[in-house]
Structure formats: structure tokens, C-alpha cells
């Protein structure tokens, strides 16, 4: 791959990335689902990536959720 000519494009990032999080646009984090080929912005606050006015609300819409009670695949 010619990194010099292609390194600023998303194609370069997608082809090289092996982790689920992709630095598509500067510091912003998105998640790429290989099965559906969808790219979505990661959820508000949960991954400290809360600056996504275009897809998620920029403020918590409500304050119902207590994150410590969320069930994870690694246990709580």
C-alpha cells in the first residue's frame, strides 16, 4: 500500500485497522461493524467520546442510567 498518497483517507484507515475503534476523523472515535459494514459514532459518554452532535445528542437526554449497574460480558 502506498501510505504517502493514501494515508489521509478513510480507506487507508479502514484497511489497516484491526481494532473495533477507528480514528476516522482526527480524534473522533467511531465503530465499524464488519458484518453490516456500518460505521457509527460510539455511544455518548460511555467511551469518553461525547462530542458527536450529528449522530448522538451532545448532552445526556436524561439522567436515568447508572453506568455501574450495566451488565458486561466480563461480569459487573
Amino acid at each position: 500500500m502506498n501510505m504517502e498518497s493514501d494515508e489521509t483517507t478513510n480507506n487507508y484507515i479502514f484497511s489497516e485497522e484491526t481494532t473495533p475503534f477507528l480514528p476516522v476523523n482526527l480524534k473522533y472515535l467511531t465503530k465499524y461493524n464488519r458484518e453490516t459494514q456500518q460505521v457509527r459514532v460510539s455511544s455518548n459518554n460511555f467511551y469518553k467520546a461525547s462530542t458527536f452532535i450529528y449522530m448522538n445528542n451532545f448532552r445526556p437526554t436524561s439522567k436515568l442510567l447508572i453506568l455501574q449497574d450495566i451488565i458486561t460480558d466480563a461480569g459487573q
Partner: protein
Amino acid sequence: MQANKYFLLFSNCILTKGFSRSIIADLQSGFYITITTEHSELLNKLKKHSIKKVLENSDNARLEIKSFVDYLIELNLGHYCSSNKEFPPINKEFKLPYRIIDCIIELSDFTYKYHKSILKSLTNLGCQTIELRAYHEFSLKIIQSFLNEMPNTRVRNVEIYLPFSEKIGIDNYNKFVMENPIVGKMVIHSCANNFHIKNNSEFLLFTKQIIHSASCCGNISQDIFSPNLPSYLLSLNANSCLHKKVSIDKNGDIKNCPSMKQSFGNIKINNIEEALNKNEFKKYGSIKKDDIAICKDCEFRHICTDCRAYVENPEDLLSKPLKCGYNPYTNVWEDWSTNPLKQNAINHYGLI
């Protein structure tokens, strides 16, 4: 260190001073760091004078100043520059063309009956985020019919809260989220204590937390901090929770927030625009964090989200949020529900 130069924070990295410490919030990358009051004063000196001059006036702290500046450079929070006039602060005005930013809808047969007219009104008002909430079992098919209307609206993000149902099952929740990309977050609450999942998804969250009514809302913790530019500007200029927010409760009552008692009409006979024009409705939207007791001394005030539904003193409009356990004078987080000074308010709202 480049002694002849100035050291400035980037314009999107904002220093907020609290009573006993400060934070620098990077509004572009979405994170913050805490620093001491002495360090925040040092940053103010570095903004006005060259590094060389600051060092000359602080003989004993040379090494500390150097390591502090190196630390901020490493975190990409600041930069050296030849003049301190070249990087003006960001404009602190907050302007959005929409009359409504987000809307909370409690799911019921009643709100479902009127969902098309609700969504039409919200579209006219520019609403981009909708939260759909159910405290009891609710059909995914009915929620799907809400979502099917979304392409005709300006909504870009739907957040859903539903109690877990064995009848639906994990696979169907997963399928539902995958088939509806507009769903930015789906929370399945009230899961059993022995509930297990195989794979985590950011869009589909399972929690054992029991969300039985609107009284479960208002929890303030570091988890809800939003270090981003619109949130920061909103907090400087208006109420970070209720400004440009509207809610429709399960009976169709139009409110600021489902946790509040006061209603400004019912969707059966009124439209949302009428409610927004009432002065009483606008009352909470203009309360800034800088106006609120104790919050105004908190270093997190401009990245936090307020709550006016549950406050420490229900008689005082500018009282601190009840469900916040942070003490900005000691910098300690504690369980708000066991604080003896909050028990009167907890009983007032019937929270426990």
C-alpha cells in the same frame, strides 16, 4: 522548554476554576483533567507573560513549571507561541436555530395514539433527538411504528429505555438495534441479577437497574459529564438540562421533564408549540450553573448536566441538584441518598 515564548491552552481547551481545584476540558477530544488552583493561577500568568518572565518570578518552582507545561503539551492541551495575542478565545455565544434540541416521550397507549402528531410538531420545532421510555413491558412492534415515522422528521438519534422481557429475548433486541441505525442507544433495564450476556455493544446496553418511574431520573455523576463545545456553551448561557427540552408523559401531558409535576397542556387538545410559549415553561430553561448554589463553586459545572426536578431545597429554585453527591469544597464524591442533610428533600419527593 522554549523560554522566550508564551504558553497558551488551545482555544478549545477550557480552564474552569472551582472552589478548591480546577479542570481543563478539551472540548474537541471530549476529555478533561483536574489541576490544582495553583496550577490554574500559573496558567493565567503564562497567558499574560513569557515563560522566561514567569520563571524569573518563581525561582523555586522552575522544575515544576517545566514539568507542568510538558504534561499539558503531551496531552495536546496547549502550545508555545511567539505572541499571546494571536489566539483569541472562542466565541462564548450559544445559538441554535432549533426551538427544541431533544424530547422525552413516555411510552403508553395514549402517547402511541398521538405519536404522528407529536412527531409532526417536533419536526416543526427542529427536534433532533428523541428518548422513548417505558417503565413496563412494551411491544417492540409499537416502537418500530414510532421509528418508521422518523424518516419524515428531523430526528437523527433515538434513545430507547425498555424493561427486559423474556418473551422478546436478547437476540431480538440485538436484531432490532441492528435494523434501526437511528437508534443511538437502547437500554434494557430491570434485568435479573443472574442475567448474562455474551457480547457487549455500545448501542444495546443491559442493566439490572430497575427504572420503575420518572423518579429514577436525575442521577448526577462523572458518567454524565459532556466535555464538548455545544454542551459547554449551553451551560454558560442557559440550563444544561432543560433549555430547549420538552417532554410528553404517559398521559400526554406536556412538561419540561417527566419527573416534574407541572403540566403545560395535553397533546390531546394542545400542541407543543403552545406550551413552549408559556412563561412558566421557559422559567427553568434560563437557569445557568453559575446561578445555582454550590454548583457555582464546582469545577465541573460547565461540563455537567443540571437537574431542576429534584433539588436539595424544593422551596429554592436555585438549589443544588439533590442527586449529586459531589462536594466541590472537599472534592469528594459520596452517596447522595445517605447524606443526612438531603433526607428532608428525599422524603419531600417520595424517592425512597
